[in-house]
């Protein structure tokens, strides 16, 4: 299984994702330059964190016009695994691959800290290796991670079990105290209806080695590998 990490000119967590996949997980991985439509035969695509085009006006708004996004959209429609982390989540929202939008954190400040998120649904390729209700310690680092969507969309997300991760307190309480940025319904990550596109604000690629604070992010990356292997093993 080969991973591709998209590189927009202002991506700055591309390297971290690359190292997490290649170095820690030991899986093949390559960079995909944003101006190319060629996904190089990758089996999963990561849209990494950063500030894709400086993002001075609206995060991810320019990145969605990059040629690579045409291919990523096509890849997603055909069932390919797409993981958008932080800026990558913002880009997925802008590109219409996920619903809703990101606004500025409610404190109007950049936030870099460890947060706790609860796995809400394990019936997806991104969480199959996790336990339902498992609390993951994973850092965030963003200025615009205050997820917002209208009530109808929220209802739909909840009804279809598409809220994958919610911010909680360290002991798992899903209340305001655990919500760092003001996201509606404590949403930290959501998937599309087909469950093959995930966007989340926390950085699993930063949580892959215990000496650096946490290795809880590995469960997401491992789930992707497991589900891919399963899919190959059981032909449709």
């Amino acid at each position, binding site marked *: 299984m080969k991973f591709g990490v998209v590189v927009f000119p202002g991506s700055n967590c591309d390297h971290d994702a690359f*190292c997490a996949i290649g170095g820690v997980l030991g899986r093949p991985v390559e960079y995909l330059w944003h101006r190319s439509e060629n996904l190089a035969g990758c089996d999963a695509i990561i849209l990494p964190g950063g500030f894709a085009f400086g993002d001075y006006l609206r995060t991810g708004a320019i990145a969605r016009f990059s040629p690579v996004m045409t291919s990523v959209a096509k890849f997603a429609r055909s069932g390919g695994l797409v993981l958008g982390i932080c800026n990558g989540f913002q880009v997925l929202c802008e590109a219409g691959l996920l619903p809703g939008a990101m606004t500025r954190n409610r404190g109007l*400040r950049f936030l870099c800290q460890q947060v706790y998120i609860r796995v809400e649904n394990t019936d997806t390729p991104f969480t199959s290796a996790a336990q339902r209700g498992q609390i993951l310690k994973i850092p965030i680092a963003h200025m615009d991670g205050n997820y917002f969507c209208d009530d109808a969309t929220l209802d739909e997300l909840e009804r279809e079990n598409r809220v994958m991760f919610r911010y909680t307190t360290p002991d798992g309480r899903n209340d305001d105290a655990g919500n760092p940025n003001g996201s509606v319904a404590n949403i930290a990550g959501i998937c599309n209806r087909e469950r093959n596109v995930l966007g989340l604000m926390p950085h699993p690629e930063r949580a892959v080695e215990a000496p*650096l604070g946490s290795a809880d992010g590995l469960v997401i990356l491992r789930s992707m590998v497991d589900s891919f292997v399963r899919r190959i093993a059981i032909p449709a």
Partner: protein
Amino acid sequence: MLETEIRVTREIAAEHGLSADEYSRVLEILGREPSITELGIFSVMWSEHCSYKSSKVHLKRLPTHGPRVLQGPGENAGVVDIGDGFCAVFKIESHNHPSFVEPFQGAATGVGGILRDIFTMGAFPIAVLDSLRFGPITNDPNNSPAVGAATEEVARNRRLLDGVIRGIGFYGNCFGVPTVGGEVQFEPCYSNNPLVNALALGIAKKENLFFARAQGPGNPVIYVGAKTGRDGIHGASLLASAEFSQESQQKRPNVQVGDPFMEKLLLEACLEAMKTGAVVAIQDMGAAGLTSSSSEMASRGGLGIEIELSRVPQREAHMTPYEIMLSESQERMLLVAERGREDEIFRVFEKWGLDAVEIGRVTDDGRLRILERGNIAAEIPAHAIAEEGPAYKRPIAPPAHPAGGASLINFAPAGTDFTENFRRLLASPTIASKQWIIGQYDHMVRTNTRIVPGAGDAAVLRLKDSRRALALSTDGNGRWCWLNPKVGAMHAVAEAARNVACSGARPVAATNCLNFGNPEKPEAMWQFSEAIDGIAEACGALKVPITGGNVSFYNETLGKAIYPTPVIGVLGILEDSSKALGLAFRNEGDVIILLDGAAAAETPIEGLRREFSSSEYAKTIHGIVAGEPPAIDLTAEKRLQDCLVALATDGVIESAHDVSDGGLAVSLAESCFASDGLAAHVALDGAEPDESALFGERGARAVVSVRTDSLARVAEVAAKYSVSAQSIGKAVRGGFRIEYKGVLCVRGTVQSLHNSWSGALEKALRYGSTTNIGQ
């Protein structure tokens, strides 16, 4: 021959900050009157900021050589050999004046400038630290001018702090470099002159280093990066090389505007271009922009450079040669390429969407020749502007009256309960938790931050291609330097190195940022000279040569100077990154040991009163700033630091935290706060007064925690280094308590003490105005 609209006179030269003597020297070098462009070039290059004319004669006294130093002062940054063919490239620089005029952009471009200094040498930036000083951000209930300030002043200081923090975060977060440490202190003297010193560290393969030395006459000179605008003109000469007056806000147009996205593109493109092998030399356009980069590259290579200004990418129409040469627009670089391989470079910059234009060539006549549409706008020997600037041995005189208040502290009677004072000390902004700041910086990006800010005495960054890690700390105590510049400066070096040793790393090199007042005043120059002597002595004794840095003079507003504030950044190497130590107590039942490098000497009570009157406690609790910094014993410091490194290497200590601001009591509390709910049960004994024992700031000491089965080994190692290792208590579940001579004098739950400490900064800022909300 020269096409000039304005005929230069001595008056115009004086308005450019050139003295009569300096102007005569210009006439002598040129053999004629300068054009207005030439005058501009001389004025920036010979400004204090660029020429170091007041400091040069003193800086020579600093030790700059060592077995690991590959490049000392004189290049864009210092370079240190860290083994396995890799080197660390690092430097600290000030951006004080711009940050006062416009805190957000001033701080942002300070970070941008120091990052360019690192990657222009071919190194990838892996960390930034910021050393900050502000005026008081709290109103003092006791109305003590040593602690608080008037409401209006407090509001302004909060705005400056907020703007600076946002600016640093804005730039580093977007660029993608972790901001991993630094320090923040608050003193009334910085109210009208905050300090913003930014340190950047990068990593490169030794053979991939680049230098700013032009080579090969005929080689093309290529301009890359952002377009040139009218921003920042005379930033170096007008902003950084003069005192502030009431009109300083009018200097806002002299502050540059930062674009971290552009800088990120420049970083990627420059490093990629360097890989082609077609780059001969490269230098960033920082202070004095195109002028300094071109003349310095030419001068270092012993060659000349000719530039055609009409080819320079410009953001605004009708810019004059004077404006183009003096612009300090950010995110620009000048490079010399190998003739015939320009296209390889152009292709890289095209990929990243950046301008790259051949604007001139290297010549063999040693002259900086500036053409505008073929007409000569300036022609000056490059060496004369870059290297032959004035150098002054300015008058030096100690102040007529010793610094500090007249009355020394009177110690409280033995057996007093100091818990309430302790709480106030924990809540003082200098000591309080900096989490509010740390959380606004991305301190984890690039996944190398082994010890995050606040978790250890130094930032520790692991190196992905090696077992090693690098540790970094900045320090500087302006109050102590004011009371005694030489001893205060020695403490700055000692504490930075001690912090690095506490993380387990061996200190190997240093960089310095020297923030002082007006060098034309003999007292300021005396402070500077004394501080240099102190730094030189301490760096020599602790084996941390100075590899670079910067001098910031004229930190005065309305004639009132800041405390002399040398800030020292020390770099250390940790052979095994898994041995990195934090400051948090880790296990219930671990023994708390106080390591002391100095032999227990009885200081007479008068001496203790003098030393204690300079402490954070004396200032915060009693409003007293007087006496002397604690006496310093560099051999004791060295012993302690060597001992700490040995203990960490052996893996026999669980945590280490030095004793500094707020003394032993604060160190113990911080090790509890960082832990998972552990408290310290400590009993001390000694001959000194209670407050001195609890809150005294004498150096060469550190608090370590040890598993009981490692105690014997710790004692053995300490004895080997002649360091006293005194068992003073235990890490426990329960209340925090310190006994002195059998009497309980500080007590409380860790949670309640933590509350005093953790929310102080945020509470002070909550009602502060916010400005300029950036990304």
